């Protein structure tokens, strides 16, 4: 019957997945580079590329083994083409192209953001189109109007920072270790989100996000408090830090939900979906479910393993092209950034 081998190396994680023709994920292996980068307190591009080179064959072997197949059963390959860190992207992209060439099977290049966008459908195929999809991660904050698979209009993008970036930066300001996002989520659960008041970013028109004002306000509040974060100890976080993070998290989530709700009122979608690394955030998941409930719309949030970068979503995103046999030319190059067609910004009110 044949399988699709999907590869994702656009940032810090090396991931390979095996999917069958029905889009059932037979295996999805992710090798995180966190341990390699943590001592440096950030991503080191050269380490990232080298780690991908080091990891890719062991990750491949693990993915094939878990799926119970061998290379001869691979009938197509797919890989992220962009956007992402070029040095990282090229490792997985070259690997998948070369594999396709050697096996004489088609190759499918995938847009990383589209892969995130479609990830809510991996385990929820019946979610109806058109859908509004909020894609939020360390590098991206977008709302898309997905008319159907392959046809997307960008409703909203960020004017400055991405949502996950805002969490990472305020976390770092309080001395939290890399990666800060999941820790902010954990610590915020123990704090009082009403302790500090934030003014919502006001945009004259449209649905775009802006997080830099909230970030500035956070830095101001910290400065005015005169408090200094202690050396970080996960089991002994001061109450004021938890309050500060809980209040900031609430402000970011309020803004995300507010923009999404505005879009819901304008674009007549039949469902809502949430995707990307920040979709792992507890408060955002809750509030997103409430929003969908208020508008009586079916919604989908992928399981955590498909929120963070993974190859299963890359394979899933290539599936319909595999079925209709529309391969990507092997001469195509990777791209570091992507542009999207903007939705018309007409707001009645």
């Amino acid at each position, binding site marked *: 019957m044949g399988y699709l081998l999907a590869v994702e190396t656009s940032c810090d994680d090396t991931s390979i997945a095996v999917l069958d023709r029905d889009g059932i994920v037979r295996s999805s292996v992710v090798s995180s580079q966190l341990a390699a980068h943590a001592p440096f307190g950030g991503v080191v*591009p050269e380490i990232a590329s080298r780690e991908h080179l080091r990891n890719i064959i062991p990750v491949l072997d693990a993915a094939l083994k878990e799926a119970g197949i061998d290379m001869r059963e691979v009938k197509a390959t797919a890989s992220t083409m962009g956007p992402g860190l070029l040095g990282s992207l090229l490792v997985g992209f070259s690997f998948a192209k070369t594999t396709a060439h050697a096996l004489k099977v088609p190759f499918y290049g995938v847009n990383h953001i589209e892969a995130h966008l479609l990830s809510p459908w991996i385990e929820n195929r019946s979610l109806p189109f058109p859908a509004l999809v909020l894609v939020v991660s*360390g590098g991206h904050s977008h709302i898309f109007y997905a008319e159907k698979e392959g046809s997307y209009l960008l409703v909203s993008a960020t004017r400055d920072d991405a949502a996950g970036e805002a969490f990472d930066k305020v976390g770092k300001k309080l001395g939290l270790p890399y990666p800060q996002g999941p820790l902010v989520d954990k610590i915020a659960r123990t704090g009082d989100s009403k302790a500090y008041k934030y003014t919502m970013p006001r945009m004259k028109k449209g649905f775009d996000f802006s997080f830099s004002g909230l970030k500035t306000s956070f830095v101001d509040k910290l400065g005015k408090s005169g408090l200094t974060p202690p050396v970080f100890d996960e089991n002994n976080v001061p109450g004021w830090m938890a309050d500060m993070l809980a209040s900031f998290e609430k402000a970011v989530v309020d803004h995300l939900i507010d923009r999404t709700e505005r879009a819901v009122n304008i674009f007549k979608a039949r469902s809502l979906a949430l995707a990307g690394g920040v979709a792992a955030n507890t408060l955002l998941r809750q509030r997103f479910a409430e929003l969908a409930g208020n508008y009586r719309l079916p919604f989908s949030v992928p399981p955590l393993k498909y929120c963070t970068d993974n190859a299963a979503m890359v394979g899933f995103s290539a599936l319909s092209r595999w079925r209709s046999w529309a391969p990507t030319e092997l001469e195509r190059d990777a791209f570091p950034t992507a542009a999207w067609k903007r939705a018309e910004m007409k707001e009645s009110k």
Partner: protein
Amino acid sequence: MKLELKTIAATKKAARELARGLSGNELLLLSGELASGKTTFTKFLAEALGFNPDEVSSPSFTIVNRYSSAKKPLGIYHLDLYRLANGSSLEPLGLEHILGSDDLVAVEWPEAGAKIFERSPRNTLLLRFELSGGKRFLTVERLKRHPSI
């Protein structure tokens, strides 16, 4: 030159004035702590140079953004080394290639690339953004002139 940036309009004005004095192939190092106004300044600078400011967003995650315009032969490279560890090799970013291009290069959190920037023959301006007592300041300092050949 030290300016107080009292309002967002003052930031915009400062960016416009700086833009007027640029020939387009400089290296701008934007240094300053979190939320001191580096990305906002870059947005206004891009606008003053005729680029779409809506395309300008923080490159903290992507590390390198490039802005272009159909009306302009040259573009702007907008870099952000925030996530990079000090002393890490910047070779995979293609930094030498970026500095060797004819585009304007603006770098936020430039500290991790200090050595490479020192070696660059580009005219270099250091823009220091400071947050102090709730006030914002911008200091512009010319680091070097292109050696006359």
